[in-house]
C-alpha cells in the first residue's frame, strides 16, 4: 500500500516539476527506472530492520565474544538480514530466496537479538521480506504497474511457480481479475506451513552451524556460517528438532553448585603454601606478639602472614566507614601482597564478624575511572580475613593507625573504631550483607 502510493505520487510530482521547469529531471527518471526494476521498498525495509536490530544491540563486541556463540548469533542474524536487503536491491533475480530468508531471519531475531530489536526491527524485516517476495519485475514493455494487479499476460515469477506448481499457478493467473480467487489458497497454505515449521528451527540451524565453526579469531569466525546459513531453512525444515527449551547447544558453564572453585579464601584455616608469603618475620621487633596481645586466641601466629593468592588492585582503593565493629579480631602479621605496582606489605587481620556502617568504597576501574559505593551498611560474618596497606580510625576518640611498619598494639578481640579508613583493602568472608547498596560511577 505504501509502495503503491509512494510510487504513484513520487514520480508524478517529479514529472510535474520537470514539466514546469520545461526540462526532464533525468536523474529522477533514471532513479525511478532503477527503483522499479527491483524490489526497492522491500529491500529497503529489510535493511532498515536489520540496522534497527543492530542499533538496539550495539554491545561492546569483546564482551559479546566472551559470552560465546549465542551473543555472536545476536549480531549475525541482523547482519545477514542487512545483507539480504542489499542483495534484494542489487541482485533482484534471486528475490524469492532473499525475501524468504529475510523473513526467516527477522523471525529468528526474536530469539537471538533483543526480541527482534524490540519488535520494530522484526516487523520491518517481515514487512520488507513480504513486499520483496510479492514484487514482480516489470513486463517486457517496461511499463510499470504501480498499483494494478498483474496483467494476465505477464509472466509470473519463477519462484512462485516453483512453490505453486503448474496447476495452482494457472489458477492464480486465471483468477486475477476479480481479486483474490480461491486458487492462491494452496500456495499460501503451503508457504505458511513451511514457514511455520522452519521458523523456530532457523535460529537453531544457525546456531548448530555456528557451533561447528572452530572458535577462531573473532573477526573471521562469523562469516562462513553466515554464508552457509542460506540454505539452512530448507535443511532446518527436515530436522526433527523440538522447538522447546534452549535453542542453542551453548556450552553452559560447568555448574559448581554452592562450592566455589576457589578455596574458601586465600587465607584458609590450613597452612597456606603461598609463594608470596614472607618467610622472614618482617619488622621483627614490632611484629612479634607483644605481651599485651599474648592472651588472645591467635597470638601464637607468626608475624609473617600468608598473602592472598590473588593479586590486589592498585593504590587508589579506599574503604571508609563511619563506624566499624570488629568481633573476634586478631592480628595475623604482615603479608607481602602482589599488586600491579609490585609487592606491597600489608597487615593481615582475622575476625569472626565485622559490621561497617556509612561505608564509602572508592574503587578504581584500572583504566582511569572509579566507582563509588555510598551509604552502605556491610555486615560480614564467618571466617573473615582483611588485608590492608594502612588502617586508621579512632578508638574511644583516640586516633590510631595501623601499618605494616607500625602495627598497632591495641588490638582486642572486640574493637570499635569510628572514622575507619582502610587503604587497598582486600577482604574475604563467608557471607556479606550489604543493605542500602548504592553504587555509582564517577
Amino acid at each position, binding site marked *: 500500500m505504501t509502495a503503491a502510493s509512494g510510487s504513484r505520487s513520487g514520480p508524478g510530482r517529479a514529472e510535474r516539476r520537470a514539466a514546469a521547469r520545461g526540462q526532464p529531471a533525468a536523474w529522477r527518471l533514471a532513479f525511478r527506472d532503477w527503483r522499479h526494476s527491483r524490489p526497492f521498498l522491500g529491500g529497503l525495509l529489510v535493511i532498515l530492520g536489520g540496522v534497527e536490530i543492530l542499533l538496539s544491540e*550495539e554491545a561492546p563486541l569483546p564482551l559479546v565474544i566472551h*559470552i560465546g556463540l549465542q551473543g555472536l548469533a545476536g549480531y549475525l542474524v541482523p547482519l545477514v538480514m542487512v545483507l539480504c536487503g542489499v542483495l534484494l536491491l542489487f541482485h533482484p533475480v534471486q528475490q524469492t530466496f532473499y525475501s524468504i530468508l529475510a523473513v526467516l531471519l527477522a523471525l529468528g531475531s526474536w530469539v537471538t*537479538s533483543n526480541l527482534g530489536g524490540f519488535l520494530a526491527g522484526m516487523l520491518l524485516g517481515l514487512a520488507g521480506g513480504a513486499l520483496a*517476495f510479492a514484487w*514482480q519485475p516489470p513486463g517486457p514493455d517496461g511499463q510499470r504497474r504501480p498499483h494494478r494487479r498483474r496483467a494476465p499476460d505477464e509472466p509470473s515469477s519463477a519462484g512462485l511457480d516453483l512453490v505453486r506448481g503448474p496447476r495452482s499457478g494457472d489458477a492464480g493467473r486465471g483468477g486475477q481479475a476479480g481479486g483474490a480467487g480461491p486458487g492462491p489458497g494452496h500456495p499460501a497454505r503451503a508457504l505458511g506451513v513451511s514457514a511455520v515449521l522452519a521458523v523456530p528451527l532457523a535460529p537453531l540451524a544457525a546456531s548448530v552451524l555456528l557451533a561447528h565453526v572452530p572458535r577462531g579469531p573473532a573477526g573471521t569466525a562469523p562469516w562462513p556460517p553466515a554464508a552457509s546459513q542460506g540454505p539452512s531453512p530448507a535443511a532446518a525444515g527436515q530436522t526433527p528438532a523440538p522447538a*522447546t527449551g534452549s535453542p542453542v547447544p551453548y556450552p553452559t558453564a560447568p555448574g559448581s553448585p554452592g562450592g566455589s572453585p576457589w578455596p574458601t579464601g586465600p587465607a584458609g584455616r590450613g597452612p597456606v603454601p603461598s609463594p608470596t608469603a614472607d618467610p622472614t618475620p618482617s619488622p621483627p621487633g614490632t611484629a612479634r606478639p607483644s605481651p599485651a596481645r599474648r592472651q588472645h586466641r591467635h597470638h601464637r601466629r607468626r608475624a609473617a602472614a600468608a598473602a592472598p593468592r590473588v593479586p590486589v588492585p592498585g593504590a587508589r582503593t579506599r574503604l571508609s566507614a563511619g563506624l566499624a565493629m570488629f568481633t573476634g579480631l586478631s592480628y595475623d602479621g604482615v603479608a607481602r601482597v602482589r599488586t600491579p605496582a609490585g609487592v606491597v606489605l600489608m597487615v593481615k587481620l582475622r575476625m569472626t564478624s565485622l559490621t561497617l556502617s556509612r561505608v564509602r568504597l572508592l574503587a578504581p576501574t584500572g583504566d582511569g575511572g572509579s566507582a563509588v559505593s555510598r551509604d552502605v551498611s556491610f555486615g560480614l560474618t564467618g571466617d573473615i580475613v582483611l588485608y590492608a596497606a594502612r588502617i586508621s580510625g579512632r578508638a574511644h576518640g583516640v586516633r590510631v593507625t595501623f601499618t605494616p611498619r607500625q602495627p598497632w598494639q591495641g588490638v582486642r578481640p572486640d574493637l570499635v573504631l569510628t572514622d575507619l579508613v582502610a587503604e587497598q583493602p*582486600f577482604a574475604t568472608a563467608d557471607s556479606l550483607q*550489604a543493605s542500602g547498596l548504592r*553504587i555509582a560511577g564517577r
Partner: protein
Amino acid sequence: MNWRRFAAIIVPALAAAAVLVLLTAKSILAVSFSISGTPFTITATQLKGRGFEQFGVVDTSVLKVLPGHTNQIVLTANAIRSATIRDLCQSVTLGGLTLRITAGHGGTPASATDLVVDADRLSGNASFTHIHIGQDASTLNQVPGVKGPAGGFGQQATTVTIDNLRQHAYATTAGVFKLPGFGLSFGRPC
C-alpha cells in the same frame, strides 16, 4: 506488486511471530539480549544468582549523547553466571516512547545465564556468600570468560541475593534469557 504473494508470506510470518511471542511468554522459548548505548532501567523485587562478579569499567559510548559526560562513563559491570529474577521490569526510552518489558511475576521467576549488566547506578539490599572484596578485576573467575581490566577493583562471590534491585544501565548481555509471563507494553518506565 502481487498482493496475494504478499499475503502468502506475511500471514504465516505474522502467525509465526505470534507463536514466538507466545512461546516466550510461556517460558518455553529462551531469548537472547544484548543492549548497549541507550540507557535503560532494570528493576526486580529479588535477584538470586550463582557465580557473581562485580568490577568497574570505563565504557566509551558510540553515540556520544551521554549528558554531562564527554563520551566516557564509569560503569559497574555486574556479571552473574546463572540468575533467577522475580518481577523483572526493564524499560527503554527511545525517542520519547518508553518500551516496557515485564516478566517473572508470580510463581515462576525469569532466569538468565551469563548475565552481564553495565550499570552506572545500582541500588538494592544485597547478601553474598564466600565473597572476595578488593580482588584484582583481571583475576575474577566466578563467571567464565568475564574479567575486568588489570589493576581494577573487583569483587566476587559464589552466591548473591539482591532484594529491591534497581539498576540504571547502559549495556546488558545475556546468553539465555527465559521470560515467563512475558509482557511488552508502552507506558511508564520501571
